[in-house]
């Protein structure tokens, strides 16, 4: 042993101290204590004269030995303590990070099913267990999956009812090997989280993070619940409003033509008038019944749209046929208007649902006639582009008020000053039918005054060149 022979055994003590400090950075307190004792004794035995005995000859060597022992011990203890603290800090940081991560993911999850997915994956990442989450349906009834076993079902129901942690290791149902935790938000019992087949030695729920996780999950679920309740409330509100509008406008709009018919027919029955007056009364009855018929048609069309079962049956049609049909039907209504029809010369056949497009044009032209003064001009232009037909309906009335532009296609929306005779459904039906064709409808006010409706309808190219074949 070459070092043993040197006289500088004090140097050796420093090397040993270094080794002990080094050990302290890596091991726990026990090994550190052992290392400091062993190194002190080894130093004494091998290096302090007389060698190979534990006897120490010189008094200052005894002092140095004592000091060495104490320094090694202190060094070891202090280093370990610092290490332990550092580890605690690191653990706390990891916990904070995990919690942060969970909070972030939960905040991003929209629907309750997404929230439970996030919760389950985060818990299994952090705690190494895969729980199940059962949430309530909004009426305080838990939604249980069909595959749930009866014992889990029982424990889950109990937990939900009692709002108490139930199952293995708790005061309720302690014989069970599952453990369920209530997910209670600030005001709503959102559901239950259950860990099945809990091992007796696992103590995941002793982790301070566990409760924090549960609280976060419960809060996220509660948030989703509350937002859905709010949505439902606003939906109910909206449909109640629609019903009110519907009944108000129906009773109002229907009463006028009915009143006309009753009044006119009653007069005809009870009084004798000359032929001219009678003719006028007959005309009034006729107009009123047409108006009633139109109202019913609009209601039926709206319900077709609302039902979601509107089928578009496209076939090849000559757009002139369509325009003809509509203008013929509206002959009476357009008596006092100047209607200009311009169809592109090279207009090909178009593949459309005749009945639906007929209704679209009918409603738009009726609309134009209702919002313009008599003797106004209504312009109907039809052209085509690659793969689409473009229909434009212009009038030279006063146009729509700017604030109304975005609402005109809403159900039951009516411009305040519009002439009576509508439910405010015509334009929304037109829009619905255009969209059923995969097309678009747009309204703007023209610079020169009046409204301009533009419709784009996608259509295939016909395989027959327009009217050239013989």
């Amino acid at each position, binding site marked *: 042993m070459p070092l043993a022979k040197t006289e500088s055994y004090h140097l050796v003590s420093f090397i040993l101290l270094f080794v002990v400090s080094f050990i302290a950075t890596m091991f726990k307190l026990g090994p550190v204590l052992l290392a400091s004792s062993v190194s002190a004794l080894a130093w004494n035995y091998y290096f302090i004269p007389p060698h190979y005995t534990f006897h120490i000859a010189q008094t200052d060597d005894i002092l140095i030995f004592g000091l060495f022992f104490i320094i090694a011990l202190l060094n070891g203890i202090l280093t370990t303590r610092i290490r332990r603290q550092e580890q605690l800090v690191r653990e706390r940081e990891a916990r904070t990070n995990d919690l942060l991560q969970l909070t972030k993911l939960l905040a991003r999850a929209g629907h309750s099913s997404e929230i439970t997915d996030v919760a389950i994956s985060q818990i299994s990442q952090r705690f190494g267990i895969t729980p199940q989450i059962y949430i309530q349906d909004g009426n305080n009834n838990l939604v249980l999956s069909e595959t749930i076993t009866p014992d889990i079902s029982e424990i889950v129901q109990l937990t939900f009812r009692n709002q108490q942690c139930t199952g293995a290791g708790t005061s309720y149902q302690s014989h069970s090997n599952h453990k369920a935790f209530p997910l209670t938000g600030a005001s709503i019992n959102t559901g239950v989280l259950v860990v099945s087949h809990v091992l007796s030695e696992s103590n995941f729920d002793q982790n301070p993070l566990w409760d924090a996780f549960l609280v976060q999950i419960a809060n996220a679920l509660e948030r989703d619940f509350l937002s859905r309740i709010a949505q439902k409330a606003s939906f109910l509100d909206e449909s109640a409003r629609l019903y009110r509008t519907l009944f108000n406008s129906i009773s109002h709009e229907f009463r006028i033509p009915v009143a006309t018919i009753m009044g006119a027919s009653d007069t005809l029955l009870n009084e004798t008038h000359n032929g001219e007056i009678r003719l006028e009364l007959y005309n009034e009855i006729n107009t009123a019944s047409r108006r009633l018929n139109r109202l019913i048609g609009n209601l039926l069309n709206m319900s077709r749209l609302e039902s979601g079962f509107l089928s578009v049956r496209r*076939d*090849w049609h000559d757009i*002139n046929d369509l*325009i*003809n049909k509509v203008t013929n039907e509206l002959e009476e209504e357009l008596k006092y208007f100047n209607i200009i029809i311009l169809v592109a010369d090279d207009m090909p056949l178009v593949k459309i649902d*005749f009945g639906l497009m007929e209704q679209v044009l009918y409603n738009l032209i009726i609309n134009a006639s209702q919002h313009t003064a008599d003797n106004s001009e209504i312009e109907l232009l039809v052209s085509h582009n690659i793969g689409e037909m473009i229909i434009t309906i212009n009038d030279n009335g006063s146009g729509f008020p700017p604030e109304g532009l975005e609402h005109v296609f809403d159900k039951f929306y009516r411009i305040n000053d519009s002439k009576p005779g509508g439910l405010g459904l015509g334009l929304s039906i037109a829009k619905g039918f255009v969209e059923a064709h995969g097309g678009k409808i747009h309204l703007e006010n023209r610079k020169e005054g009046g409204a301009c409706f533009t419709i784009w309808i996608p259509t295939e190219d*016909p395989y*027959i060149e327009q009217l050239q*074949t*013989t």
Partner: protein
Amino acid sequence: MTDQPTILIIDDELQIRRLLEITLSANSFNVVASSTGKKGLVDAATHHPVLIILDLGLPDIDGQEMLKDLRRWYSRPIIILSVRDSEDEIIRALDNGANDYLTKPFRGGELLARIRAAIRLNENRNDLPIAEFGSITLDMVNHSVYKNGELLKLTSTEYSLLCLFVKNRGRVLTHQYILKEVWGYGYLQQTQYLRVFVAQLRKKIEENPSKPTLLTTESGIGYRFVD
């Protein structure tokens, strides 16, 4: 019994029956009305009506079935008068042998016109070789068409189309029927041909092709040639 022609109305709505009775009686028809399908079938057999007006929504028998039943032996015109206005329903009724179709609400004048056209069409089954309508003269012996006395140049398809319409004037012809008669069974889906040739024919025979008065469109169903 009067010598006025009898029309049978089969409709379960009292008000519609009454309205039809008034309208038709005022126009020199003898009217028999039935409120159910079963009674209607019996009335059709006992009263020998020249025409039947049938509602599709009867309480006891489905209208389309009723139509098929009647058509087993009744060859005179049947006009459907119904609230059902879907194209499918109308086409089915026409396929099942209805001569015409009107949806409720209807105009009395229009109904009378359809009734008269249907009866006339039925009575004049022996077609005259020369038909005249408006400014158009169709000479089926010489295969020529004149407009205001001038010879029109029609392609053979246009000519057969026109003949088909003229033979069935006053009656609505479904797309399928026209395609089958003029082009043949292989062309049942080729509505494009039909549209193109109808447009061409209109250009030649109509005064104003964009406002046809002779050859009118029945939306989603077919065409009708006025008489």
